[in-house]
């Protein structure tokens, strides 16, 4: 049995519509059923993605295939999005009581169905985005992702922070979308094309003026900078991350960022030959590293800390982008997915009982040793301790930087890694040194526990054997 690539996205979209439809008419059922259904459906699609028919080469670049590619990078990120969404849904099941409390509605389960259905649409958008090789397609899929995030971020309608986050995200995202469209029109104006391959061919031809092309790329970069939270477009991140429902924050910081990087890798390739572009990116990467790490140092709220850490990791990823090290970036993203989602999963469990300040983790090792251990692994990986995926990610990135002689970025990278040890170990310290701030074990659902064990296992496994990830990228 073979499957053509776009049918995966279509299947996910159909799944989302089905969940939404059934949810409307099923008042009596426990709404968590829909989350489990969605997870199961996405898992099926994930399995199906391994039976894809190889892309026919003769059709490449014509008709539909000038918008859409099914190269290994695209397939890989489809799987990436599916796994992320499944994990986020598992987290959402745990988080459902919190959401229910802050939604006005007659029935006790009002709103939960949409809460579980929307991530499926986001996933479809992420999957389209992974395959997009045309600026129009990039724009449309990006909007599909962003639209569902608008709703998800502001989902807890009675919670002022969530609403504030929603408004901030809406306005700034809309602004960045504006930049993107404007940039695309400039690119079209300069080259007369929107397909990435043809754009780069047009740019390489001698007749093209480089100044307007650079300006166009700058606009596109600004828009993508918002998505990946690179300095100076990171202002929205801490507030939105803190205000949004925690599973949505995890989704935002992993899914949205990964998609941004895939697009960045695809879009930048024709432009990186220009020296100005490289210098600009080095500047952005350096600024992101410094800002993210320094601002994370004094944080006392774990959600905010993770927000700044996500900015910091965007900096490391940008080092990889500057060095055109696609493999390093992809590996780092996978590591980032595992460790970030794991830390958010623990955060969801703990914050239900106490709160999401670092203080609330005090003495967690005595109350729930398993959760504390999961968090320890996440933090160790984020900081970059060997035998975790986070370390190997940094290893790949630094290797690429050494190969490209990016001395400035290497020096900044090493200083910021040291900063990282401080703020990640702050969490370890709270969990293991301090006296417990509350009594009793933290309840964790079976699904979450299973997901956490799987993520810990994956962090260690990929930290030693990166083969499955890097090989998946090769045709």
């Amino acid at each position, binding site marked *: 049995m073979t499957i053509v690539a776009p049918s995966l996205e279509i299947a996910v979209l159909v799944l989302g519509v089905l969940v939404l439809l059934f949810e409307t008419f099923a008042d009596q059922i426990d709404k968590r059923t829909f989350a489990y259904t969605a997870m199961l459906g996405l898992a099926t699609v994930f399995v199906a993605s391994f039976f894809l028919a190889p892309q026919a080469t003769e059709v490449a670049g014509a008709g539909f295939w000038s918008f859409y590619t099914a190269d290994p990078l695209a397939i890989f990120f489809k799987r990436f999005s599916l796994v992320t969404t499944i994990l986020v849904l598992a987290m959402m099941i745990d988080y459902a009581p919190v959401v229910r409390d802050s939604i006005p509605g007659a029935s006790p389960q009002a709103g939960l169905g949409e809460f579980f259905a929307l991530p499926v649409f986001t996933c479809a958008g992420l999957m389209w985005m992974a395959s997009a090789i045309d600026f129009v397609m990039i724009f449309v899929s990006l909007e599909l992702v962003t639209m569902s995030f608008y709703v998800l971020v502001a989902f807890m309608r009675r919670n002022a922070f969530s609403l504030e986050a929603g408004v901030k995200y809406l306005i700034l995202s809309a602004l960045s979308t504006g930049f993107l469209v404007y940039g695309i029109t400039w690119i079209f104006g300069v080259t007369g094309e929107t397909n990435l391959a043809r754009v780069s061919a047009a740019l390489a031809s001698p007749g093209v003026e480089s100044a307007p092309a650079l300006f166009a790329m700058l606009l596109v970069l600004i828009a993508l900078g918002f998505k990946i939270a690179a300095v100076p477009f990171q202002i929205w991140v801490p507030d939105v991350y803190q205000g949004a429902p925690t599973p949505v924050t995890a989704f935002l910081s992993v899914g949205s960022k990964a998609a941004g990087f895939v697009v960045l890798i695809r879009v930048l390739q024709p432009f990186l030959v220009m020296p100005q572009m490289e210098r600009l990116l080095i500047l952005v990467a350096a600024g992101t590293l410094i800002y993210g790490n320094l601002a994370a140092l004094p944080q006392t709220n774990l959600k905010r800390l993770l927000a700044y850490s996500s900015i910091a990791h965007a900096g490391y990823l940008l080092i990889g982008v500057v060095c055109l090290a696609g493999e390093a970036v992809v590996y780092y993203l996978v590591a980032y997915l595992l460790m970030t989602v794991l830390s958010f999963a623990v955060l969801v469990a703990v914050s239900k009982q106490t709160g999401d300040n670092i203080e609330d983790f005090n003495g967690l*090792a005595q109350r729930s040793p398993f959760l504390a251990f999961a968090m*320890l692994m996440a933090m*160790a990986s984020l*900081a*970059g*301790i*060997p*035998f975790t995926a986070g*370390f190997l990610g940094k*290893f790949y990135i*630094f*290797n690429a930087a*050494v*190969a490209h002689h990016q001395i400035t970025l*290497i020096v900044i990278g*090493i*200083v910021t*890694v*040291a900063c990282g*040890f*401080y703020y990640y*170990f702050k969490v*370890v*310290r709270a969990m*293991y*040194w301090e006296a417990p701030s509350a009594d009793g074990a933290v309840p964790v659902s079976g699904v979450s526990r299973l997901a956490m064990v799987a993520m810990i296992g994956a962090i260690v496994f990929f930290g*030693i*054997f*990166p*083969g499955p990830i*890097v*090989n998946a990228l090769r045709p």
Partner: protein
Amino acid sequence: MILLFVVLFPIAAALAILLGAPARRTALWSAGITLGATLLLCLGFEGNAHGAYEMVTSFSVNDDWNINFALGIDGLSLMMLLLTALVTFAAVWFTGEIAQHRNAFYACLLFIAAGAMGAFASLDLFFFYAFHELALIPTFLLIGIWGSGNRVVAAWKITIYLATGSFILLLGLIMLYRAVPETARSFDFRVLQKSAILIPAKAQGNIFLLLLFGFGILVSLFPFHTWAPEAYASAPAPAAMLHAGVLKKFGLYGLLRLALPLLPAGAQEYNTLLIYLLLGNIIYVGLVTIAQKRLDWMLGYSSVMHMGYIFLGIASGTLVGTTGAAVLIFAHGISIALLFALAGEVRQRTGTLVLEDLGGLGKLMPLAGFAFGLAAFASIGLPGFSNFSGEVMVLFGTFRNGANPERFTIYQVATLLGLWGVVMSAVYMLRAYRAVFMGSQGESLSAVTDLRQGLRVPIGLLVAITIWFGFFPQTFVKLVTPTFKTYFAAKQ
């Protein structure tokens, strides 16, 4: 296979303890079994004249980078393994009553030991580095949870220093890996040793500098030493024993294993810099040590100071000096472990380590006083103890480098200054001994009791080893010279 067992068994034991096995018994048995297995390794070690690795086991981990989980030993790594096993055994035995989280404490100790074992037995750059870093979190927790005094600051300081040092080192290792043409690239020590001649001299200098600073931070090379005294003063005694005795030696081992043979031109280029810095260790830190008013700080600084001699051996550029450095690594590891263990016992009984408040403990704790005296003598470098043989070789070796009766070079000057360092260490060690064990005892100390009978075993073991190798240093010299000979043979 035994080698694999020696590396993985402590990890397995630590995990078992975390999962609820009886902490002390499991830890002690596993440390004992590891020590036994290491002795078996010594028996099985053939010691060929070319310094080749023996008992190699290798599993491919990453085809892409050609990373293998490869273990193997030559004389130098065997010596380090033996040191690790001995100090771990003593440290676990010395662990007294733990007020909270007993299991976690023992598990952390065993993780540090496993990290050291793995690093010393690895033949692959990646695992060599990774195993050492494995010890970072346990160290942070050991100082943070069970430490005393200013433990929070100390734990942060050591963690951030070591993390920074490690990442500088990582950068150096990546550059080392990339310095040879693409086809010759490998993480394997054996391949590296063959392909190292392809590294251009300029690159050698840069890489050596990175390795020097990376390893230097890990070994508390002046001026990056400030984390060490504070951390050792705050750490619980077994953690200080393991860290100062074993884990810290990783940096020295790395310089001997990688920097000297692979980057001879780089080593030559920066030798003068290294000598200036290590004189900072010997002279400056030596003076600082004399000024200390607390026993634990004094020991911490003294361990920083003695690193200077090992660095001097590494910088000496002669076979004798380099061999002396290796012997001194072992000797210092044993003596400092004993000193920290006894200081920990004194703190447990008296509640203080301020030299002024102590005194006359020799009458109350004759066994501890006797052992401390021996360890102090060893640490000073009195003949008959293993430190002496190491220091003598280091100083002779350094003096001989470019020796010219007409004119002294930096090597001869460094030797002379180093000799003054011996005098300084006599001053602070003997003063501390007098202040703690001699003189009149304070009122508050009258209830102090001597060590438990059971502790005679680890003390006896460590003392016996120091004395044995003080009289028969050839055992180790024979073990490590084949390795070092290849370094100096390649040079000519």
